[in-house]
């Protein structure tokens, strides 16, 4: 039984569909006058952020608060962490404060895994992005967004006019997903490859060869260096952010050349199938991996992804903390008791 969400690879298809379905219900709460549920009253969720990521932190914070959990934000900046306190001592402090779940963002790959397996804490650990390893809740919200668009029609197919639809219970079988950009350093890409293939999608990674990890040949996906060849066969195209610090490290000659070969502009978008969507985990480098025209088009789901992030994180927190043991990876109680 899993008490943590460390890697998207740990999720079975049924786990993943359960999380997405639960998130669908959570999303409905956002439409109500009172956007709050009493479910995690008395539970404490700690956001332990060793890396700046306001977007991810407030998403988890909103999720925990909508479920009535107490939220403690622990940021490495200005705390004892930056004064050399170890992850272990920080963890022991949080444990002493009674954290039921620790949402951790860390610059080192594997830090959440270490936190979960070292015995330092008893609560659940949720990976909110570790180094260049994984970012499972991002992959889940991406899959959620894709499912609504690509399996949201009543017949299970893509919706029309870019409107998301009800896709509960469905997976992404046969959908063709293209992920473009800095795969080497992307935790989003790694988590998406695991999760999307688990959900039955066919994933293609597109990047200059310098930004594809050695060893990625073993991943359950295709790898291409030619964006134009892949676009017409894509149901969703996910553009990854290219970090500024990569630009002077010889991964590609110039920004202009990168944008020309691997950026998504209106011409390229026009080559995608009519129902296909453009995704971006944000923050976007407009003019680099994506043009403003594409970013602001109706086919781009970047803003929707942010909203979906809260629903997904509510679902994950609920499934990990909403019972006496986590539901993800464990048998689900389907009995109807205490009428």
């Amino acid at each position, binding site marked *: 039984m899993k008490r943590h969400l460390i890697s998207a690879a740990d999720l079975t298809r049924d786990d993943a569909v359960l999380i997405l379905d639960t998130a669908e219900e959570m999303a409905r709460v956002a439409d109500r006058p009172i956007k709050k549920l009493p479910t995690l009253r008395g539970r404490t969720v700690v956001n332990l952020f060793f890396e700046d990521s306001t977007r991810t932190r407030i998403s988890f914070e909103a999720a925990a608060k909508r479920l009535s959990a107490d939220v403690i934000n622990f940021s490495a900046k200005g705390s004892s962490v930056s004064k050399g306190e170890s*992850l*272990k001592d920080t963890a022991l402090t949080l444990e002493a404060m009674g954290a039921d779940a620790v949402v951790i963002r860390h610059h080192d*790959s*594997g*830090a959440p895994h*270490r*936190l979960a397996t070292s015995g330092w804490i008893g609560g659940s650990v949720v990976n909110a992005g570790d180094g260049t390893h994984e970012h499972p809740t991002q992959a889940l919200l991406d899959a959620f967004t894709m499912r609504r668009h690509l399996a949201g029609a009543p017949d299970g197919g893509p919706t029309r006019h870019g409107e998301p639809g009800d896709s509960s219970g469905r997976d992404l079988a046969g959908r063709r997903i293209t992920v473009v950009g800095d795969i080497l350093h992307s*935790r989003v890409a790694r988590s998406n490859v695991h999760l999307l293939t688990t959900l039955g999608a066919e994933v293609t990674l597109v990047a200059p060869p310098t930004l594809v990890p050695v*060893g990625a040949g*073993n991943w359950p996906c295709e790898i291409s260096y030619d964006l134009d060849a892949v676009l017409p066969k894509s149901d969703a195209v996910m553009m990854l952010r290219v970090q500024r610090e990569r630009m002077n490290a010889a991964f590609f000659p110039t920004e202009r050349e990168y944008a020309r070969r691997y950026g998504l502009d209106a011409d390229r978008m026009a080559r995608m199938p009519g129902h296909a969507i453009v995704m971006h985990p944000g923050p976007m480098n407009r003019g680099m991996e994506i043009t403003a025209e594409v970013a602001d088009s109706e086919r781009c789901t970047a803003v929707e992804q942010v909203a979906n992030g809260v629903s997904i994180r509510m679902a994950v927190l609920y499934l990990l903390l909403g019972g006496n043991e986590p539901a993800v990876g464990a048998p689900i109680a389907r009995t109807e008791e205490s009428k």
Partner: protein
Amino acid sequence: MTVSDDRNTLIRGARVLGAEAQDVLIEGGTIAAVGPGLSAPDAVVVEADGQILLPGLVDLHTHLREPGREDSETVLTGTRAAAAGGFTAVHAMANTFPVADTAGVVEQVWRLGRESGYCDVQPVGAVTVGLEGRKLAELGAMHDSAAGVRIFSDDGKCVDDAVIMRRALEYVKAFDGVIAQHAQEPRLTEGAQMNEGVVSAELGLGGWPAVAEESVIARDVLLAAHVGSRVHICHVSTAGSVEIVRWAKSKGWNVTAEVTPHHLLLTDELVRSYDPVYKVNPPLRTEADVTALREGLADGTIDCVATDHAPHPHEDKDCEWGAAAMGMVGLETALSVVQHTMVETGLLDWAQVADRMSFRPAAIGRLGHQGRPVSTGEPANLTLVDPAYRGVVNPVGFASRSRNTPYEGRELPGRVTHTFLRGRATVVDGKLA
């Protein structure tokens, strides 16, 4: 130290280098007799039925940490660990604080070794001042000191400047020295955390490509050939490195190489646990590399086993992978790992183990009184091993001050029952004397 200081010792029925059982009589510091049915009325008798008698093991690559990091190891605790592992001589690496780059520091380490009494400590001198790779250290002064340094290494760092490496190789010819290279191209290993390959791609840990090691080895064997010097390659870890050393040897060049016990057994699959006990430099590689290293050691391409014993305090490993120190302790498990990976697989017999763990390393380090045959008149540096023993590694019982072993909980064969340093028992019945 023990009663055997004054009395002679008769080892009865030991299989010398794995051959048939013999008796071995030790008188004073030397082997007085080897043969069947010896008797010595006053001698302490060691019944060695079924045990293997080896020449005392010699380690070319040990981090004793003193001076500077006595919290992880001292010369005393490190040599006790060495004796417990069957070693009678260790080479103390230079990356201490201060760095062993002057005659003063190497003499200090050498003297501490003599005082410890558990095994010979031969200091290794730094190649460059402060291990910084820019300016040659006073190699001659270290050689001329009481420590008599013959092996020079910036281990932990690579001598990556080709000109500095060339000059060092040339310079130590004057006193039959050797440069022991830690082969790691620095630019290719910036931010490197583990072997670059399938596992690193999945784990998102910075990749440490095999080519970063192999390219430096290739350059250095060519350099050594060009200037007619000998070069020693530390902790060879990849199949490609084995190939390059094999090629260099086929050319008749004066190249020697070592492999660590952990690279003979462990692979990067273990890193999936993110447990920093598996974090080591060079990193654990793949199954194919392990196979190539075993073959290379078996066919003599790799000359010897060296532990790269690298003690670290608990807090440096009880943390996240990225923050953890690199290295593993190895002195007390080396022989067991070699028995497990090389003897029990049929790749080496015990005579060859003696060669790879005693004769050859002593020859590379030019240690006259170590790594000698087990025969009459030779110094009585001896190790007695019970190969039938099976035990689970428990670091709590280690003599080393540090516990960072990757074998905790693992069953390994063999146990050192006795170690003799110049006739004096340093280990008796598996316990330090």
